[in-house]
């Protein structure tokens, strides 16, 4: 590191990204809580383990190949150029910068921040398929969304050189599309193949409510996701960079925070907009669901997700209104799709993440129309058509399609869904039975000792 200012900037950046990682852990804790809370008693532990074990699997595969995909694929490849092997080489699992290295303090924390996004993408899917998917099948799907599909979309649309940014003017600063729309679409693709839980729909097709066994736990889980979302937002920024470091069209020597696209923003702006979009979502969620706690909390999340694409630039009142609008759309679409297509999305993940993310991208195209998508010359401006095409790519092309295809393959191999008897007995049946027998044995021994 040359000079004290560079040293300070590097160490600050290292610590900045590091601090986002334990914060983002709360997202996963929250997902586990709300998923287990939404499941019935006979499925608790399998539901918990299904979500927990995606952590190691996505982590190691993201190390093996996910991180390389991000750096090698911003051009498509073969859309604005070939594979970027030079950038990819520095981020392979055999690169010296991926291990302890005195010459590189940033790669490790940057990798980890992206990895936590990968967990989130897979965890979003996890909730929607509870109580009937084979854990082994889910974990294969988790690797596909967490270490392949989402990171390709990030290379395309969440990278300063991504082809979608260059050609479409795609703007998605806090990941309405690159995390949420894709994960929602991926979940929907699986759900179409997986089918509903037994008893979810009456013979005439009317959906039945399968209530969470613990609504309180579900809501606290969602509350924890809000907490973790702070880390997610902060991790989406480059904390401090000088215009010379960007090398684009910005003149002067005023240092700034930027988005992932290296376009200027401030931490203050996104903090206010995060809270205003959360509020808009909560207010709309409460009204549209008539005070239902689960949908009010989910509305808060949907509010943030909808506004996230443009929360680097929106006025706070824009963020509030957009958050509320996205929540309204997500709620209505969830029940319409459930009735119309008999889709059993157990936790509303497709709606809260997929539909809200999609809507957020489209709205962003109108509200930020004409704003430069990049500090570099020759990039398309943000525009409604580019955002709409981007939303289609995120939700359907990289989300729904891979989810549907891999689920079809797993179903054809007989691996996707648990046996009907196990679904009725409960995934935890064998464990519960053993534990009850052990407890009865201990009680009998204790009574004999009286």
């Amino acid at each position: 590191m040359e000079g004290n200012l560079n040293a300070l900037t590097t160490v600050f950046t290292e610590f900045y990204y590091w601090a986002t990682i334990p914060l983002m852990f709360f997202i996963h804790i929250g997902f586990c809580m709300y998923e287990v809370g939404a499941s019935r008693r006979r499925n608790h532990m399998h539901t918990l383990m299904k979500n927990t074990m995606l952590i190691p699997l996505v982590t190691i595969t993201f190390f093996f190949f996910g991180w390389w995909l991000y750096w090698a694929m911003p051009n498509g490849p073969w859309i604005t150029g070939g594979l970027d092997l030079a950038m990819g080489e520095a981020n392979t699992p055999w690169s010296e910068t991926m291990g302890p290295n005195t010459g590189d303090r940033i790669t490790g924390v940057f990798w980890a921040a992206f990895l936590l996004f990968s967990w989130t993408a897979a965890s979003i899917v996890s909730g929607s398929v509870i109580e009937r998917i084979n854990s082994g099948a889910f974990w294969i799907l988790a690797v596909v969304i967490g270490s392949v599909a989402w990171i390709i979309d990030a290379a395309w649309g969440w990278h300063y050189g991504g082809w979608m940014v260059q050609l479409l003017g795609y703007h998605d600063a806090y990941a309405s599309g690159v995390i949420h729309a894709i994960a929602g679409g991926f979940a929907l693709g699986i759900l179409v193949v997986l089918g509903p839980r037994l008893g979810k729909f009456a013979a005439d097709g009317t959906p039945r409510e399968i209530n969470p066994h613990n609504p309180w736990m579900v809501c606290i889980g969602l509350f924890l996701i809000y907490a973790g979302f702070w880390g997610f937002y902060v991790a989406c920024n480059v904390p401090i960079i000088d215009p010379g470091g960007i090398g684009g069209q910005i003149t002067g020597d005023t240092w700034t925070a930027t988005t992932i696209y290296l376009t200027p923003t401030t931490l203050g702006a996104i903090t206010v907009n995060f809270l205003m979009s959360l509020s808009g979502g909560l207010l709309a969620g409460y009204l549209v669901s008539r005070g239902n706690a689960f949908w009010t909390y989910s509305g808060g999340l949907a509010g943030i997700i909808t506004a996230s694409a443009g929360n680097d630039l929106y006025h706070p009142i824009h963020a509030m209104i957009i958050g509320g609008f996205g929540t309204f759309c997500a709620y209505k679409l969830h029940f319409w799709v459930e009735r119309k297509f008999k889709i059993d999305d157990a936790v509303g993940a497709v709606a809260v993440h997929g539909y809200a993310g999609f809507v957020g991208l489209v709205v962003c195209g109108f509200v930020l129309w004409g704003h430069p998508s990049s500090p570099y010359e020759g990039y398309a401006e943000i525009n409604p058509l580019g955002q709409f095409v981007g939303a289609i790519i995120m939700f359907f092309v990289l989300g729904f399609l891979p989810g549907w295809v891999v689920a079809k393959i797993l179903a054809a191999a007989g691996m996707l869904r648990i046996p009907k008897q196990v679904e009725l007995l409960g995934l935890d049946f064998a464990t519960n039975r053993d534990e009850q027998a052990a407890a009865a044995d201990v009680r009998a021994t204790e009574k004999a000792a009286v």
Partner: protein
Amino acid sequence: MSTTGIESWAVDLKDVGAIYPFQGMEGLFLIIGVVLWLGWHVLQVRAEKADYDGVVSRHGDEASINEALEGD
């Protein structure tokens, strides 16, 4: 002799770089890691199938299922 290549800290850190052991064998580490990952999936899928087959064969009758549903 050191597995990390570092035998003394009497160095200028800008000249150091990687400090983990067995540098140059990263390709082998990757192969081992990928084999362990794929092997884990194979073992897990087999174990899960065996577990469910066992549950179905021992408790998949109507009476057991009705009893389990009553207790849910």
